[in-house]
């Protein structure tokens, strides 16, 4: 605590705008006093347990197979979305579609990094082990909603409004598949109990649902 008092004086400045970029090396790091009760309430009608700092820490949970497969599959799934948005820059002439594509590109690229770190942190491979290295896309396991090779080829050939239409319908299909993947994960016994995975899947669900809404709105405009 003494350290904090001194920091406080360091930070007080008489300038009208008090700016400080000091390195705060004095954050209190000591644990709570030993006397602080750590209570684990029982279910309603049941008695409480008192925990010790050691027993309160709980145990680190290993991810389930479904958790790991979800993340591996979603990395591949996101990879296709990034491929699709990469085409936008040259094929779409519609500012709104390009902006939406940029949003999707940023989201999915960030999330791929996040998923890779989640897997690496847990000592898991970034993709499901495969029998043969270098296999082509046609024999890749398809995640729900992923565009077929034929659909991807059609998209890559298209331009202008035709591209926009294929992009929007394709991405809605793609995102809808991601929502299915989240739903499937939580329908699997024991899955999704890692809090980081839970938050991540909630974010995927919310973000992609919102993007589907925006894309449907754009398609609606296109019809008019």
């Amino acid at each position, binding site marked *: 605590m003494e350290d*904090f008092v001194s920091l*406080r004086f360091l930070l007080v400045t008489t300038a009208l*705008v*008090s700016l*400080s*970029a000091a390195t*705060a090396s004095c954050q209190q790091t000591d*644990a*709570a*006093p030993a006397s*602080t009760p*750590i209570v684990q*309430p029982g279910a*309603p009608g049941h008695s409480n347990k008192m925990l010790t700092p050691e027993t*309160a*820490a709980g145990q*680190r*949970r*290993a991810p389930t197979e479904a958790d790991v497969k979800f993340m591996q599959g979603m*990395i*591949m799934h*996101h*990879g296709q979305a990034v491929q699709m948005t*990469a*085409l936008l*820059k040259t094929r779409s002439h519609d500012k709104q579609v390009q*902006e939406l594509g*940029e*949003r999707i*590109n940023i*989201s999915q*690229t960030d999330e791929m990094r*996040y998923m890779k770190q989640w897997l*690496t942190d*847990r000592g898991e*491979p970034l*993709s499901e082990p*495969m029998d043969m*290295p270098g296999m*082509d896309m046609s024999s890749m396991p398809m*995640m*729900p909603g992923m565009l077929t090779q034929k659909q991807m080829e059609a998209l*890559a*050939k298209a331009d202008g409004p035709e591209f926009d239409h294929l992009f*929007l319908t394709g991405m*809605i299909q793609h995102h*809808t598949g991601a929502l299915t993947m*989240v739903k499937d994960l939580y*329908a*699997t016994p*024991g899955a999704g*109990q890692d809090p980081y995975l839970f*938050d991540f899947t909630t974010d*995927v669900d*919310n973000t992609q*649902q919102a993007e589907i*809404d*925006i894309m*449907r709105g754009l*398609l609606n405009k296109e019809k008019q």
Partner: protein
Amino acid sequence: MIARLTSPSSRSAVTLAFALSMCFPALCAAQGGPSAAAATPPAPPPSPVYVNPRSGPDDPRIGLKGGLYDAGEAASGLERVVSLPKPPGFAPDLASIAAVDAAPAPPPVDPNAPRARGGPQGPRADYGGTNSDLAFGGKYLFSGNYNGINFYDISDPAKIKLVTSLVCPGGQGDVSVYGHLLFMSVEAANGRLDCGTQGFAIPAGYVPPAPPPAEPGAPAGAARRPPPPPPSPDRVKGVRIFDITDIANPKQIADVQTCRGSHTHTLVIDPKDKDNVYIYVSGSAGVRPSEELAGCSGADPTVDPDTALFTIVVIKVPLAHPELAKIVNSPRIFTDPVTGNMNGLWKGGNHGEGTQTTSMTRGCHDITVYSAIGLAAGACSGNGILLDISDPVNPKRIDAVSDPNYAFWHSANFNNAGTTVLFTDEWGGGGQPRCRATDPMNWGADAIFKLKGGKLTLASYYKMPAPQTELENCVAHNGSMIPVPGRDIEVQSWYQGGVSIVDYTDASHPVEIGYFDRGPVDGTRHAMGGQWSTYWYNGYIYGSEIARGIDVFKLVPSKYLTQNEIDAANEVHFGELNVQNQPKVTWPSSFVVAKAYIDQLARSNALAPGQVSALNAAIAKAEATHSKPKELKAMAAKLDKDANTAKVSADADRMHALAEILKQGGTDAKTGL
């Protein structure tokens, strides 16, 4: 093949990189790194309204050193008084973090190399349970966490002290307090009735039922539908209620189970109902199977009119018997009043091939009620909505807005007058870095709406202006009002973007007037952290830092905020504060408040310097002599007259409010005269 179809004239190196990666889908999946996005600065989307500018390279928040407890800091108008790390049961495992920091960088992963599951796990940095939302009751601060709730005594905020740790996992631990009742949201998959930390194991000998046949016409890859998990009688998703009469030994007295759990909840107090309080539950997780909680259905509303989608849940808590709390309504607040379609806010329709219908999992993320004006603002999926809550059990939607720049409507705050609503967009959900120099200023920002006659109109966007690194998760998040009279000021969290204080008195031109920021939680790798909630309570600002613990701040004067204005805010005292149950603030008729108005009128040049000096001199005389000089009344009359010609309506309001205090002769808060 697709790569060949891509025009070779594509000049963008990024496009080329992605085109190449398409030849090697596995490679692409493994290596489409974040650098690609960073290398593609998006053109800022055109905005029909004002967007505050990004700050320049001299912003002291740029380049702060990373670290869990020793990060660099920058502050303006705000001083960190003290910080407390998270206690045992919630705290980071410092040994694990040190091990990760000491470990050599792992070699690039070859995705084609055969690796079995459950291989050697590298050291994994454990930052402990995530700190989440805050609630205040009397001298106590309740700090929600994914693992439970910590109770702090803040009778002397500079000596904040942990008094009880309540261990009870099941994120995200949103908290509210009402007297001796403490409410907690549970949505995660590991929440247990007995507050156990073990989660749920698959029961021994459990054999999943055979999967049903594929749905006809389902697209490739979507045909499989795994068997449902075994229902568990020990699971809780919804709202826990604790009795905290004995602060050292809180008791769980009820669990109100809901179909979609509780991502957040909002305490609602009906001024006409003294016997009950209400809770609005916003749930965004998947719907539980009916085998686990009877009556839960995740079906499309056209199939099942009792679906748990497209609704919020209203819980009634009888104060005499809170253990009998139960769900009393699931209002269909998204329904189209004309067609009766429960998905009434959806204007898209079906678009043929590839857009086959999916159940839009509509719900709210958070709702802020402002009972004093009978309204609530809901941040709900793709919409910001306005609810009439004059009958709190039956909220009625009166307006809804959408915005193509908004990915995820997250939360809302009213200004005190109820004429402005500040919504936040949690683009990326909070786990992603969305304040980089390449991220547009109106994405992941606040959207500020004017509210008039029950209608919301977009006035501006505001985003914490200092660019943050790739390592810092950052986006608009929770904040609360700083009750400076005469101004609309909010202190707001931006995760690892720190704290930003925004003045949105002019809803069309919000401006930052203070901030606090630290470097990343880890300077070398992404680690989740930053401010979840930052709320003003009785003269201090409390921050819930996800990884680091609780921060206590106080305001310090700057050219944007005077000591008189800070003192006037500190005249406001809450007995309890649940920020999403927004209190109406009234200020005493004191000279402290009068001086704040005078400073504001001087700052905006609405009063001539001579008039400012005369007012201050008259007040100083009144304070010194404990009298009520006659000239105050004359000054008040002049102010009321000048208000008629004030250029800005905020100044006219200040002049009238100041005049009112002078007419009453002021009542010094300290002397009571």
